[in-house]
């Protein structure tokens, strides 16, 4: 195996350091944590959030017709294929990626020449990011045999696996066509990297590492490839379309990478803390799929019994319940949230290097949204 995870060791918040228990000592009390590890259901928002201006407002004007425009890209003559492809573009998704992309575009444009609008090519990236994300969801759901997502049945559940895989391929090809039309070789190459990362991430998920430290690095690498790469590289793509300065491209990439990893870490936490209604999919889904995510890996420190379960991918009867119990009795959820928080502060550090603008501040705000989201 190529040890690409080494990149993480250069990060000041590297996996190995984070693994050290001393971290849990200085968890700041100013942050609300999602959960204390009990299995309480249906966590509700407190009002303390209200003081934050909604970062989503700034980008929303650019995204009004997002789903209609995506549907135009997905044009084809077969009614059923069309229905399948458009199934998740129903406007009920969070559109987190397109939002982040347009905010980044405006922030970079302002930084470069005080131009606050979004270029049409940059907006295309927002569409493409959502399309690539959706295509990967469709394939992931077939791979995992999932039957519910975003509160409705999955594509494979309704139309069957054969057609679902084709639908995913079709969305991906439409996304590639859209990227090609932008006509920028660097952008094409960056987004093709995303597709490769997504597939490699899925492969990483197939295996697990025996060694504990390696296992955490493996988990973070998988998290980067499966989630953060798309966000990081779409951010980089819009920055390239905004200005020629490689420093800005790096800022955009780093911001995207860090917030992307945080996003997924919280996702993994929510799998333990949120209830099925909120998430739109069953909870403890990861455990049932045999996947050991952040909370379990942290819980492993307190309950070494988990090691054996992780290696057998929670395949014995009672494993899932037992693992859940261990996680709730440990600091796993809290530590994972804390790790996510560290990635978010790194993201804030990066984006703060850009010239101030409302969009830049919205991107800072967005990290908070990532940490406190409940679905």
């Amino acid at each position: 195996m190529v040890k690409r995870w080494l990149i993480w060791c250069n990060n000041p918040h590297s996996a190995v350091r984070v693994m050290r228990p001393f971290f849990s000592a200085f968890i700041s009390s100013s942050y609300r944590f999602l959960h204390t590890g009990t299995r309480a259901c249906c966590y509700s928002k407190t009002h303390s959030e209200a003081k934050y201006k909604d970062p989503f407002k700034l980008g929303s004007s650019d995204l009004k017709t997002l789903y209609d425009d995506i549907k135009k890209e997905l044009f084809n003559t077969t009614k059923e294929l069309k229905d399948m492809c458009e199934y998740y573009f129903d406007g009920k998704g969070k559109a987190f990626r397109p939002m982040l992309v347009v905010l980044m575009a405006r922030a970079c444009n302002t930084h470069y020449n005080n131009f606050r609008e979004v270029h049409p090519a940059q907006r295309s990236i927002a569409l493409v990011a959502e399309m690539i994300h959706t295509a990967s969801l469709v394939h992931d759901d077939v791979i995992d045999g999932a039957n519910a997502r975003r509160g409705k049945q999955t594509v494979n559940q309704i139309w069957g696996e054969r057609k679902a895989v084709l639908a995913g391929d079709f969305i991906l090809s439409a996304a590639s066509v859209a990227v090609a039309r932008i006509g920028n070789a660097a952008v094409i190459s960056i987004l093709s990297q995303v597709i490769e990362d997504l597939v490699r991430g899925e492969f990483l998920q197939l295996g697990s590492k025996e060694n504990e430290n390696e296992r955490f690095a493996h988990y973070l690498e998988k998290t980067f490839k499966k989630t953060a790469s798309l966000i990081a590289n779409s951010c980089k793509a819009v920055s390239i379309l905004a200005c020629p300065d490689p420093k800005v491209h790096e800022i955009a990439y780093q911001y995207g990478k860090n917030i992307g990893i945080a996003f997924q870490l919280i996702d993994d936490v929510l799998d333990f803390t949120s209830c099925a209604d909120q998430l739109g999919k069953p909870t403890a889904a990861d455990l049932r799929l045999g996947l050991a995510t952040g909370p379990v890996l942290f819980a492993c420190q307190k309950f070494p019994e988990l090691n054996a379960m992780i290696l057998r991918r929670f395949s014995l009867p009672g494993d899932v319940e037992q693992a859940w119990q261990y996680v709730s009795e440990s600091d796993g959820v809290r530590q994972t949230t804390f790790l996510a928080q560290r990635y978010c502060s790194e993201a804030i550090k990066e984006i703060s290097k850009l010239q101030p603008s409302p969009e830049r501040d919205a991107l800072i705000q967005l990290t908070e949204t990532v940490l406190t989201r409940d679905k």
Partner: protein
Amino acid sequence: MGLSSSSHSCAKQASRAANAASMPLLGGICSRLHHSARSLNLISRGTAAAARRWGPPSPQSAATKHPVRLSSGEANGAKRVRRQMNRPQDGRQATDMALASIMSVIQRTLPRLGVLSSSFSANRKFSLFSGSGSATQWSKVVSDAEKIVGYPTSFMSLRCLLSDELSNIAMQVRKLVGTKHPLLNTARAFVYDSRNNLQMRGLVVLLISKAAGPSKSSDDMFQHDMVSGIHASQRNLAEITELIHTAFLVHRGIVNIGELKTCDGPVKDMQFGNKMAILSGDFLLANACTGLADLKNSKVVELVSSSIGDLVQGIYYENSFLPEKNTFTDDIGIANWMEHIFLSHGSLLAKSCQAAMELAKHDSEVQSMAFQYGKHMSLSYKLNADLQPFINGKYKGSSFSLNSAPVVLHQDSVGREAWMQQIKEAQLKGNLIDLAKIEEAIKAGKGVASAIDLCRYHGDRALSTLQCFPPSEARTALENIVYAVTRLS
């Protein structure tokens, strides 16, 4: 093996050219060549071993319970493998089998153009043309064509085949041995079924690149990266075309879990097979995407990406005609049929041919001709394949698709009511249909003759497009491919 020596000499040749021109680009290609030559050597030894194990099917093994065909070659080896067959659940022994099937995948995507042909064409039978004198004819056309395009293409496929990801798949797929998942058949078909086996698309892209030659507008510098008259980028494109084609061979074999019957074996196996099929298909597609991006030509990216979309739509139509769907009552009409077939069987090659012209900076006139050649050749090829069960004695009584050209044309000629009547007469108990009876009815009508006419018509259209290229051995090879495809006797 011939393969490594030929690629070595090419590498040396290119290396000399690079030194002369001191172009970093060429140097890079050369190091790639050297590297690949080594890996090729390695692989070819592996595939030779696999070929021994996976030689031509013997009749008795085809009838065995497990869907595994074995070589009648090496006695010991065969015995060993047969033992494994009886105990596919035996992990360690199953590994051998799995490796053999993976080797077959590797062999399939290997640069067999001109390379493996020396060692394999003896064993390789082209079922499309077998049973008639045209089998040897076709082999000759292909091997001649392979020589023209020079050294093998698929270095990129090799890189991706030697990757961690596919070795991972190799480890996993062994669990599928003994199940009925189509992925296993797809892997096996890479060895046996020549219709899938032959890297026809890559070969045509290379030939048309060579036939078109360098464009008048391009400067001398640009022509320096040509080897055997083909740009490196065009060779990469040929591989990408094959990668995409292979990815969809794999994705076509996804099973609908909800429709499984108890005789299909455990659901878990099928789910696992689906997982492997999706992952390996996606992996090939992702490699195609990065390969396309590396060509640094957004028009080519757009063209080839759109052909992926076409392929999906085409397969989608194709699936709606699966036998279990009982859609024989659909009145599709030959015009719609041709449109669907273009999407599923023609678009990828047509657009790849066009893209190859774009890469050499040929004008839109030449690009359009290349597109037309790819399109009409593919259609002619598909019509030929559809006709085989009707004109080839060897296929008698074998099943044919009710969505094949002769059936659709027959339907058009006799009219809907008469066709429905014929279907009714051939209907057996349940929803089963007596295909032999239908076959007789079709042979008595005009469907077969019309399909032959159509096959020749598209062949002629393909030939006429080639007139825009100057006479050359590559052009002759493209013509010979058409002649082989339209020879129907």
